[in-house]
């Protein structure tokens, strides 16, 4: 279950952060909080049920972790290595991801919607039923990945690699796609047209 507590500041409707009674906006020591949280994440094999919204992480090794039911919305992640991790039901929406490595990850029900994703590598991964709607994505690789039932609706994809991917039930409607490589992928099983989808 998501650990959602409202910020203790009067009139604030945002959720309180993990191990704090306030949200990011009302945190007195945001940089200390980021450092403390980075150390906690590095030392944990399983990261679950945390609200870490607006966290700033740089050059951190989170490879091989199990990350479940976490809110990491509006985070700023640069040079973070998630390779080989299992990430399930995690919200990374409206975040900035630059030079992050998601190689050989198992992503299930993860939400990246509205994020800016640049120079990231998701190659060789299982990316099942993930939400990439509205992402601004450039110079990023999804090559040799299983993207089953993921959604890239209304996204902007520039110089993105989808080479040799499983695109079964993947939805790209209303996406702006330029210089993307879909070679060896089953594009016939994906949805590209701007029309309603029958549920």
């Amino acid at each position, binding site marked *: *279950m*998501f650990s*959602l507590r409202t910020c203790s500041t009067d009139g604030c*409707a*945002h*959720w309180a952060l993990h191990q704090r009674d306030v949200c990011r906006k009302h945190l007195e020591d945001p940089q200390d909080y980021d450092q403390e949280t980075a150390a906690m994440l590095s030392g944990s094999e399983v990261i679950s049920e945390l609200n870490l919204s607006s966290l700033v992480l740089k050059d951190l090794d989170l490879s091989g972790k199990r990350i479940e*039911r976490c809110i990491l*919305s509006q985070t700023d992640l640069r040079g973070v290595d998630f390779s080989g991790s299992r990430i399930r*039901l995690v*919200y990374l*929406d*409206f975040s900035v991801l630059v030079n992050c490595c998601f190689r050989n990850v198992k992503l299930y*029900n*993860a*939400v990246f*919607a*509205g994020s800016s994703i640049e120079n990231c590598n998701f190659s060789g991964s299982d990316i099942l*039923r*993930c*939400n990439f*709607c*509205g992402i601004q994505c450039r110079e990023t690789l999804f090559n040799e990945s299983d993207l089953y*039932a*993921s*959604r890239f*609706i*209304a996204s902007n994809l520039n110089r993105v690699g989808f080479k040799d991917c499983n695109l079964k*039930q993947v*939805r790209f*409607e*209303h996406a702006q796609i330029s210089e993307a490589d879909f070679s060896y992928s089953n594009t016939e099983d994906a949805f590209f047209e*701007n029309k*309603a*989808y*029958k*549920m």
Partner: protein
Amino acid sequence: MRFFSYFSVLHFSNCYLIGPDGPGDAVLIDAGIFDEGLLRLIEDNGLYVRWVLITHLHHGHIQGLQTLLKIYDAGIHAFDAESLEAPVQPISESKPPVCGPYSFQVLETPGHSNDSLCFLCDGMLFTGDTLSAGSVGHTPTGYGRALLLSSIRKKILSLKEDVLIFPGHGPPTRLAIERRFNPYLQEKL
């Protein structure tokens, strides 16, 4: 409180399970298909399905009910109490379900079907086929589409941006995402 999502490959539909931290009575939202995987999820976590909330009576969301009722003595809650063979307790906005310690607000959202409901619980909104990531439910007519969009605008878009959305099909999303990127919600009525 624990929360699980389960995906049925047969109808590409989701169902959701909410239960206590330890063993005990749980709520199942939709019963797409009651297969071995869902049974294992319930039993391995020491849960007993005591209440079932139905978002709407389309096949992909209720097919598992008969099997479920052979295993669990569960109360079925839906808007349309007449159309199912099983005993159903009718629910609506003015008559929300009573599910032990779990409190659900009911939103009536006709459009995809006349009996469509959404359930709001603890910052999580279960939307059935009304709204999904980047899309809305299928409607056979223009009137149905207008009704659906009107329901979404009046009942869902008025909620807090932080609300997490768990649809009947596809990946999870959040209200702030749908407001900004869902192409169907940019349409003018």
